[in-house]
């Protein structure tokens, strides 16, 4: 084994292979984040259930009950919860990924490992929350007596993968910017709040009428719409929208990896 250290380095397939070699570290970082996340809280992992549940209740009362927002003919709570579930996974993944380098600053400046491991690990951590809060969805489906669309269920892993790619891809870009400009930390939560309103989480895309194509620019639109079709089966799956999301996901992860790799070597100097 020969390591050659040079001033400049090109992004090659070896970089991807290296992540595979460091998969144990990826596992340990994920494991650490999961372990530590709810330490020293009184109700622990219940927070993972509590947060989306409360949002659902509030949204159902505000928008479903008072606002009378249409929900494609399904009960509003279950309609909004599917959106919230994916949305929460997306936002927390993106937020964690973008701060992953800074929160591990002491490790980044002292030890070598492929830095890509950090944003990936912090995104993986959120799968646990996702799975736990999915139980609420199951309860809701039992309560409202919805039978999931079986063929549709098969595309759920695909939807999660797309969400993962979008989150981790943009997370990598933001993480590398965050190393130099800490503005990301302040701008991102605000931006995510805005983004929620241009994503059909609390309303169906049909509400935008002839402007609904604007929503399609947001890659999460296709994912959330497809998730509703798959789980509730009330509307047919919009394959075109989903394809746009998938392409956006692949593009984001490609750009993310390249951008990250280009800036990676100077992280320890500027962080």
């Amino acid at each position, binding site marked *: 084994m020969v390591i050659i250290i040079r001033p400049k380095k090109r992004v090659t397939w070896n970089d991807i292979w290296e992540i595979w070699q460091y998969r144990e570290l990826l596992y340990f970082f994920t494991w650490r984040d999961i372990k*530590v996340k709810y330490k020293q809280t009184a109700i622990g992992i219940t927070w993972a259930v509590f947060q989306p549940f409360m949002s659902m209740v509030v949204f159902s009362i505000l928008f479903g009950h008072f606002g009378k927002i249409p929900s494609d003919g399904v009960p509003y709570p279950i309609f909004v919860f599917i959106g919230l579930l994916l949305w929460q996974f997306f936002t927390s993944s993106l937020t964690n990924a973008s701060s992953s380098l800074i929160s591990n600053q002491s490790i980044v400046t002292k030890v070598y490992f492929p830095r890509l491991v950090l944003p990936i690990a912090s995104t993986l951590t959120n799968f646990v929350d996702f799975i736990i809060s999915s139980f609420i969805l199951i309860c809701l489906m039992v309560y409202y007596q919805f039978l999931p669309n079986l063929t549709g269920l098969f595309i759920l892993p695909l939807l999660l993968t797309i969400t993962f790619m979008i989150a981790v891809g943009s997370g990598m870009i933001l993480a590398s910017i965050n190393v130099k*400009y800490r503005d990301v930390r302040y701008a991102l939560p605000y931006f995510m709040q805005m983004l929620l309103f241009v994503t059909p989480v609390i309303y169906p895309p049909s509400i935008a009428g002839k402007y609904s194509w604007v929503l399609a620019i947001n890659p999460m639109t296709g994912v959330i719409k497809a998730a509703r079709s798959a789980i509730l089966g009330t509307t047919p799956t919009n394959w075109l929208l989903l394809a746009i999301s998938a392409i956006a996901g692949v593009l984001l992860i490609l750009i993310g990896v390249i951008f990250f790799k280009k800036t990676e070597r100077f992280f320890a100097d500027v962080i």
Partner: protein
Amino acid sequence: MDPIIESKNISKKYNINHQRGGYISLREVLTNALKNPLRFLKKKVARVFSTKEEFWALQDINFKVKKGEAVGIIGPNGAGKSTLLKVLSQITPPTTGEIKIRGRIASLLEVGTGFHPELTGRENIFLNGAILGMPKIEIVRKFDDIVSFSGIEKFLDTPLKHYSSGMQVRLAFAVAAHMEPDILLIDEVLAVGDAEFQKKCLAKMNEIIKKDGRTILFVSHNLQAINQLCHRAILLKNGEIVKDGPTQEVLSEYANMGNTGSDEHGDLTSSRIRPRVGEVDTDLSWTKIKVLNSKGEESNNILFHDPFEIIFSGEAMKDCPHTVISLGLRVKSKAENDYIFMKTQVTDGFSDYIKKGINEFRVKFDINILAPKIYEVAICADGPKVFDWIPIATELNILNLGVQSDVLWRVNHQSGDLDYPCTWSINQPLSKI
């Protein structure tokens, strides 16, 4: 056989502009631009035309290390030792040059990298091991050894935040000591922990080098440790290799090197470790300090038992009567007021000496009974309208060379800060013939 590490023309440049003032915030830039657009523009233009302040932390570093060698890297603060290790361990890229490394490399630039306070000792062993690059199977295999080396069996399932700092260091070193890379890079990790544990660490490192035949690059200010562990040393100064060769030779070169104290050229006027108390407008401030060895050369490295002299001077704005001047010596890393001695001049005749202008004080140590350690020199001026106190004006490094084989001496050294001159004799009953 090919060398295991081959460094060719390695240089590393830092732009000081970027380092200063922490991180840049886009908001700051914007508000500055809006508040005072003219000044902002001027600054920007000035920055474009002025040459950037560059700092070469490493310049043209060339060396080769053979398999199984233990190389010590020494040099004054800011010589580039840590940067060299960071470049070798791929944390930061070099600006020019190329390094070839033939083998698995692990670096220990800090003990306990990645320790998480909320996790238990057991969990942290695994996490830290993984961060240092140990495969999980290896950690599992060595788990018991690590635990017994650290001596924290009882607290294995206690969160790390309840550990004392000493326990954390022990645990951290225990994990690190059980790594099995081909090449190990170590940066000043022995500076922590109590004397007994340091001894244990040194023994372990000795074992790693001698028994396992691993290659080690070892940065330390502890010259004795370097002398014991390494047969070869590299002396760095201002980012360049000054000498590369057998440890003894390099160490004596280091001892003869002038101006190796913590501050450049002994200039104290810009010293920041000077606690200014309240609004005292001081009439005297320290400007310069230097240490002379027995040959009268300026050097902060003094040979064991060799006489030396400390010369320091201060500038007075006017005549300062009733001023007390003190000089203190303290072992480095000891508590703040734990001075071996603090010599004070109080006689009025002497104090009235402080006249407007530069006053120079010379303190001669004709008998040097200091044990080989690093000492911090404090100087203080105290009077009605005078106060200037610099707790670490310079460092004094008492070097011990070539007494490695003398076991008796080493036992003595462990027991205090002074090496009091005394003659040993022994009376034994005559054995019957």
